């Protein structure tokens, strides 16, 4: 190679390569050529060409190598032009070496010129994900490499495939390297991988990577097994590092020594993500996802159907056509690995076996706010404000390509902020814990917490369709009406008059209700007020109160302090202290009160119309009755007239 390089130099600019450079460049060249030949199948012609030193490296691996040098694309274009590959059409040894020299120059900050290569330059640095023992350069490059590499990943199809090819080349070239030896070397590097991109980038990269036909890789199954341990962990480490701190990675990597197949190990973050996705499909974590649901879900990953079919075969261990949570995690993980370019294994790796997954993650982080939020959102309608936030988060999670760690993080934050006040966070729960228990806890919690803060009550109060009444409303009847409403669930509607209470709501003393639509939230005071007072004294407006949401009764605990206003008469004076008892924002209250008033007034109007209609009907019927009477009288007269005739 050196001879050829020296000999071939004549065609291009004169290259002065130091020994180290010669060695590195020839190695790189061999790798690129080997990668080309390996990727395309062993070609005896190519091998011969390699031997003769006039081999040409295929553009693909060379391009990847150049990109791994982390130079901007423009620079790389310049380099390729300068080195003559574009002219000649291929990367011969001369061109390759010139290019490498130019890369080194560019990396040192020198302009990309032919003159640059004449001076002494350090070795070009290439960011490789392979273990550095083979590469001999790139250790420092890895430190800052990943950030740049990820965009390359996203933009370059099969870049990982190429990496794998190159790495496999190295594997085959150094069979003595044991797989166990490599992982210890790689973790320190991986730990330095900075948090660069979230799952979103990987998902987008998944979109862009097309599946590699794994038939072609079957002959390489064995080396692949080891090469995965060496090289494959990197993309998955990206996933891991994206979401968690390095300490978690280190922990997991410590555990990795048991299994050489690192890419098939599910990290905590991945596990959480999978669990969340599972929950989006199936709320109960201990039950199954049916085949069709899973099919629709996994089809979104844009893998080919045969591949998905194979992944299913691998992951559905019991072949029942449904996926339990560990099976789902395994399938998801396989899909993720596949999207990152890893060929699928022949058999389910031990780290993906359901039993292993069950044991490894006995208590997935059910305590995460999302779980609570899901249970809350699905089961507790009263917290509509939280519900809205959660619905969006649910939609986010359900969207396969979309979710990002930011979303999950943000969701967690948002939900935490909205929920921490309202609800205590669950401590880690057993995955087997049925959702029902959570829901049950949720409901009483909501009630108990309703009294914790007025603002929560306010928030919640705004959620139901009708706004909660506010105590500070200066309506005299407000408080008392509330009280009446609460105290007289059994009060017959007759008290109020014509309209019976709607079946959904407890019957309330209606007459007093209308003005207090505004202050309906004051259930607690209602508890303690004398039921009868307001009802009788208030105007006979009826049913508007019945339109109040059923959540009203829950608010009874709101204001214990309002109990002091029990004895208040439905007068404006009463409303004052009652309203003063609680602090609520006025504008919303007043808006609600005006809304209530309008509702009341419309109801009044409707009733009046109904009244009028009925009255008309009544009069018509009366008229008919009179007519009938008259007819009857006439007939009787006739009868009498006729009778004397017969009698006589």
């Amino acid at each position: 190679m050196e001879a050829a390089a020296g000999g071939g130099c004549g065609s291009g600019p004169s290259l002065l390569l130091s020994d180290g450079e010669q060695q590195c460049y020839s190695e790189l060249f061999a790798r690129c050529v080997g990668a080309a030949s390996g990727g395309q199948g062993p070609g005896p012609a190519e091998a011969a060409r390699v031997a003769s030193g006039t081999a040409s490296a295929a553009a693909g691996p060379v391009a990847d190598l150049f990109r791994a040098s982390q130079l901007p694309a423009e620079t790389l274009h310049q380099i390729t032009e300068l080195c003559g590959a574009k002219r000649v059409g291929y990367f011969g040894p001369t061109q390759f070496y010139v290019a490498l020299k130019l890369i080194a120059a560019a990396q040192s900050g020198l302009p990309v010129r032919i003159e640059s290569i004449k001076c002494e330059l350090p070795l070009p640095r290439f960011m490789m994900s392979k273990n550095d023992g083979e590469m001999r350069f790139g250790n420092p490059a890895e430190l800052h490499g990943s950030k740049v590499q990820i965009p390359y990943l996203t933009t370059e199809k099969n870049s990982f495939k190429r990496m794998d090819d190159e790495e496999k080349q190295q594997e085959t070239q150094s069979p003595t390297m044991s797989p166990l030896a490599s992982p210890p070397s790689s973790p320190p590097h991986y730990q330095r991988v900075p948090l660069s991109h979230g799952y979103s980038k990987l998902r987008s990269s998944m979109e862009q990577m097309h599946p590699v036909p794994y038939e072609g890789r079957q002959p390489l199954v064995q080396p692949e097994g080891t090469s995965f341990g060496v090289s494959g962990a990197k993309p998955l480490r990206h996933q891991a590092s994206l979401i968690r701190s390095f300490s978690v990675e280190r922990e997991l990597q410590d555990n990795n020594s048991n299994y050489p197949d690192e890419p098939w190990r599910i990290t905590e973050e991945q596990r959480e993500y999978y669990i969340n996705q599972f929950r989006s499909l199936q709320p109960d974590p201990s039950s199954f996802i049916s085949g069709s649901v899973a099919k629709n879900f996994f089809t979104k990953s844009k893998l080919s159907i045969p591949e998905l079919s194979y992944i299913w075969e691998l992951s559905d261990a019991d072949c029942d056509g449904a996926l339990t949570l560990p099976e789902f995690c395994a399938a998801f993980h396989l899909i993720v690995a596949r999207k990152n370019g890893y060929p699928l294994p022949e058999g389910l790796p031990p780290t993906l076996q359901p039993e292993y997954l069950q044991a490894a993650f006995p208590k997935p982080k059910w305590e995460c706010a999302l779980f609570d939020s899901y249970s809350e959102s699905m089961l507790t309608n009263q917290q509509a404000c939280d519900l809205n936030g959660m619905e969006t988060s649910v939609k986010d999670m359900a969207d396969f390509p979309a979710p990002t760690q930011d979303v999950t993080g943000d969701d967690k934050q948002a939900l935490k902020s909205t929920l921490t006040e309202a609800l205590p966070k669950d401590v880690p729960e057993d995955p087997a814990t049925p959702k029902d228990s959570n829901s049950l806890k949720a409901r009483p919690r909501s009630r108990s917490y309703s009294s914790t803060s007025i603002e929560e009550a306010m928030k919640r109060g705004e959620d139901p369709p009708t706004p909660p009444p506010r105590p500070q409303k200066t309506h005299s009847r407000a408080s008392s009406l509330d009280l009446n409403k609460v105290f007289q669930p059994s009060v017959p509607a007759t008290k109020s008059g014509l309209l019976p209470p709607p079946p959904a709501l407890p019957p309330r003393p209606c007459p007093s209700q209308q003005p207090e639509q505004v202050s309906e939230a004051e259930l607690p005071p209602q508890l303690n007020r004398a039921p009868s007072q307001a009802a009788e004294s208030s105007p006979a407006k009826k049913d508007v109160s019945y339109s109040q949401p059923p959540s009203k009764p829950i608010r009874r605990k709101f204001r214990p302090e309002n109990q002091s206003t029990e004895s208040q008469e439905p007068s404006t004076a009463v409303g004052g202290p009652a309203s003063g008892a609680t602090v609520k924002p006025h504008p919303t209250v007043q808006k609600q009160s005006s809304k209530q008033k309008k509702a009341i007034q419309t109801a009044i109007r409707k009733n009046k119309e109904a009244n009028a209609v009925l009255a008309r009907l009544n009069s018509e019927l009366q008229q008919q009755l009179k007519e009938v009477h008259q007819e009857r009288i006439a007939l009787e007269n006739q009868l009498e007239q006729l009778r004397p005739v017969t009698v006589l």
Partner: protein
Amino acid sequence: MAVCIAVIAKENYPLYIRSTPMENELKFHYMVHTSLDVVDEKISAMGKALVDQRELYLGLLYPTEDYKVYGYVTNSKVKFVMVVDSSNTALRDNEIRSMFRKLHNSYTDVMCNPFYNPGDRIQSRVFDNMVTSMMIQVC
């Protein structure tokens, strides 16, 4: 042990057919194809009354001088046809039955895969491996 194994769909087109490569595969395809007539005959011979009690294993369909052809039909009219070497006299009926049972189990596993559309060719690796294990003893 088997020389050729075929899975025929209800509409009598092959879902999966595989034979040992050393022989002319076309011959086996032809044998399987002709055996379908015998299968249909056996099915119809059972009579309508016995449809539910019909034995899935059909037994020896027809022998040739070199091979014997065995048949098995499922309740959904999917047929399994197996060609074995006549010289392999050690194969008994029970063994054939067990082989068919394994085939049937693997087939149901393939069916359970939601990504498999009934009527497609069977491309499951697991199924392939199982069939290979059945055919591998051919010497």
